[in-house]
């Protein structure tokens, strides 16, 4: 029965490191914006539109990282029944969905001037769209059951089964020749990208990741509190004689 095993310790830990992650996030993104928008040159091929890269690519990274985090947490939750893992998985999906959305939108905004079309059924684009729907399905499934525990488990299974999509996104450009840019930063060996562009890209990448961590911690705290509130409501309803069962907790 290690359900909610030591939420107090987690809450303490989270509130200690949170200010630091928040500060680092602001710093990195600020620097990234400075270098990306002001210092770095325009691309000789893509012109100024290359600046979209500094939000597009980090958003894509975080979208995939968030999904991996969610799948990992789901596995832990399913196998070891660790309650905190369930809550992490639950907290990760709205953040991941937001970044997937950003990646899709900024990609489209980049695609119109570069490829002349907002959208194409290219392998990477399609798999990214599916990632977005997986996030949506995850969130919908979580909330679709009267028993929150059931929703958590069903969503965990979906998250694990959907994980195959992540390597497909990552390697789709290598496996099929498509419209989309092949990997130039995140490949084995040296990145083949100019340092003046690499710097803001990396700054923004780490900054977005720290942003993810910060918001994730906040959301997990929120979920822990929500679970506590539910538990108190339940004991109120059936444990305390005379308490009026408001029924809200039964949802």
């Amino acid at each position: 029965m290690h359900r909610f095993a030591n939420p107090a310790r987690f809450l303490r830990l989270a509130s200690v490191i949170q200010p630091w992650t928040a500060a680092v996030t602001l710093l990195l993104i600020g620097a990234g914006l400075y270098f990306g928008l002001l210092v770095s040159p325009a691309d000789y091929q893509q012109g100024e539109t290359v600046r979209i890269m500094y939000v597009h690519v980090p958003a894509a990274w975080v979208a995939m990282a968030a999904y991996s985090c969610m799948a990992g947490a789901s596995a832990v939750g399913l196998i070891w029944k660790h309650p905190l893992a369930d809550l992490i998985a639950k907290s990760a999906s709205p953040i991941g969905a937001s970044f997937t959305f950003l990646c899709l939108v900024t990609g489209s905004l980049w695609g119109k001037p570069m490829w002349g079309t907002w959208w194409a059924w290219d392998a990477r684009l399609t798999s990214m769209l599916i990632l977005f729907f997986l996030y949506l399905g995850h969130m919908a499934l979580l909330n679709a059951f009267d028993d929150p525990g059931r929703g958590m488990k069903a969503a965990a299974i979906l998250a694990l089964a959907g994980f195959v999509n992540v390597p497909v996104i990552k390697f789709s450009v290598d496996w099929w020749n498509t419209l989309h840019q092949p990997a130039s930063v995140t490949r084995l060996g040296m990145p083949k990208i100019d340092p003046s562009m690499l710097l803001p890209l990396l700054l923004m990448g780490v900054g977005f990741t720290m942003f993810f961590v910060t918001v994730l911690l906040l959301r997990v705290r929120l979920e822990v509190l929500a679970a506590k509130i539910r538990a108190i409501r339940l004991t109120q309803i059936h444990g305390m004689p005379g308490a009026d069962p408001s029924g809200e907790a039964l949802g």
Partner: protein
Amino acid sequence: MDSLASYFSMGGYAGYVWSAYAITAVVMVALALLTWRGLKGREQELKELQDIIPGRRGRSHDGVAEKG
């Protein structure tokens, strides 16, 4: 002045570049704000609940832990 205007025009692609940055900013700020507000709301709710039930304040942690 001219260079500033040409900077903002982004080589003719201003609409694309700036809207990409704007959407990103809006989504990230909204995400952070909503989460923050949700957290504060829950904290408030929990405090009210524990205030209603005298004597539960100390017990609420193990109450959660034992509940399963």
